[in-house]
């Protein structure tokens, strides 16, 4: 049926909005919808060329209706495709803003997939964990790469501000944090701190914001 595949894409997009990660790109659906549009266009032009120039819609309501349905289905499919891609690219942009390294995760999970052949239980587990991340189309990978560049270029003009920083109003200058993963040594203006797992520190918020966002540290209230 016309538009059914498009509808599926929209449902996927709707689901994507409420997910934390990005589900796999629906290459098959996108291709099928595009094909449907091309077929519809072909049909429409065939019908039109058969009719010639002296066509009055009121004289032949059946053909007019068929043309209209074709036309509207094409437009609808286009809207569905645009909506699907827009939701995904918005999500990718948001990830860029949050400082997630999407491409690196993508590569990692691809490598893990390759590693599966060796039958290691650990890599299987890892691949399963990051399966949600390994889901970009090649076009989307390119998009992410270029958007990161664009973002970096814009951010570069505001180095003092750190545009990707927290959007919560700052309340305290110093906060308590607990280290969840080893993060190595960081430099602060009060000297260097060695962040080893399970240790707890009282540090300046600005110094560790990035690490909190990346999941190395946890803020204690």
């Amino acid at each position: 049926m016309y538009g059914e595949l498009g509808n599926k894409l929209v449902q996927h997009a709707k689901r994507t909005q409420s997910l934390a990660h990005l589900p796999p790109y629906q290459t098959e659906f996108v291709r099928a919808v595009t094909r449907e549009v091309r077929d519809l266009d072909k049909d429409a032009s065939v019908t039109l060329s058969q009719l010639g120039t002296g066509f009055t819609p009121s004289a032949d309501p059946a053909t007019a209706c068929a043309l209209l349905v074709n036309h509207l289905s094409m437009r609808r499919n286009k809207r569905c495709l645009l909506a699907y891609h827009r939701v995904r690219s918005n999500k990718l942009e948001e990830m860029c803003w949050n400082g997630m390294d999407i491409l690196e995760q993508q590569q990692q999970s691809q490598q893990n997939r390759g590693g599966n052949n060796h039958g290691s239980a650990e890599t299987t587990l890892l691949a399963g964990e990051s399966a949600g991340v390994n889901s970009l189309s090649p076009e989307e990978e390119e998009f992410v790469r270029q958007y990161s560049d664009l973002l970096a270029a814009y951010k570069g003009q505001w180095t003092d501000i750190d545009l990707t920083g927290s959007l919560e109003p700052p309340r305290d200058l110093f906060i308590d944090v607990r280290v969840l993963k080893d993060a190595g040594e960081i430099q602060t203006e009060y000297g260097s701190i060695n962040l080893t797992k399970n240790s707890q520190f009282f540090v300046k918020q600005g110094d560790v914001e990035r690490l909190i966002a990346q999941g190395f540290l946890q803020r204690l209230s």
Partner: protein
Amino acid sequence: MDIDDILADIDGGSGGSLATEDLQALTRAWVNEKGSPEILTYPSELIERVMDRIRKQIETIEMQTGDMDPKMNFRLVILQTELERFKYLIRSFLRVRLAKIDKHALHILTNSEVKARLSASEIQYLTAHQALLHSHYRASFLAQFPPNLQRLDDTAGGISMVEHPDLDQVIFCRVLHDVADPITIEGTDTADVWLKRGDIFVVRWRHVADAVTKGEVELI
């Protein structure tokens, strides 16, 4: 102290140094930007001044960090807190603008009057971002479409593809100065509404947009 005193304090400007005024102006610009559905004019001079001050403050802090004097340390904490707050204001301000730029990208690009409200780097970001999105759509599926369906700013078929800001959105605002001309609101039984200083209104954005631009009304 009632609201009038506070207002007099705010826009009297008496005794306040330029720095304090800038802080007020920045806060006001930030709140206005957050409240309004449209993007507002970029206050380039104000941002420039504040950024200068932030840079100086960072230098001061770096210079004095080595000092172990406890009195000095206390001052530093205050300085840094202030710095963080300023940084937050600017960051949030810029991010709100970017969100609007992304949302109404095509509307802004095609409307030169609105486009003039952006800063140079924002325009740069906007054009680059749109080009990027367009080529992404094109590479993903649009290139295989029939040529008459490839446009992204189509208005045919009854639905415009360009998203416009909702000028009828309701906002809360406070009047800072008496406004000379009354505003008329269609569809209500009140004929003219006079904006008197200190009044607070809940009103559609389109009716006070001009007054906000002139600085006679602020959003809250």
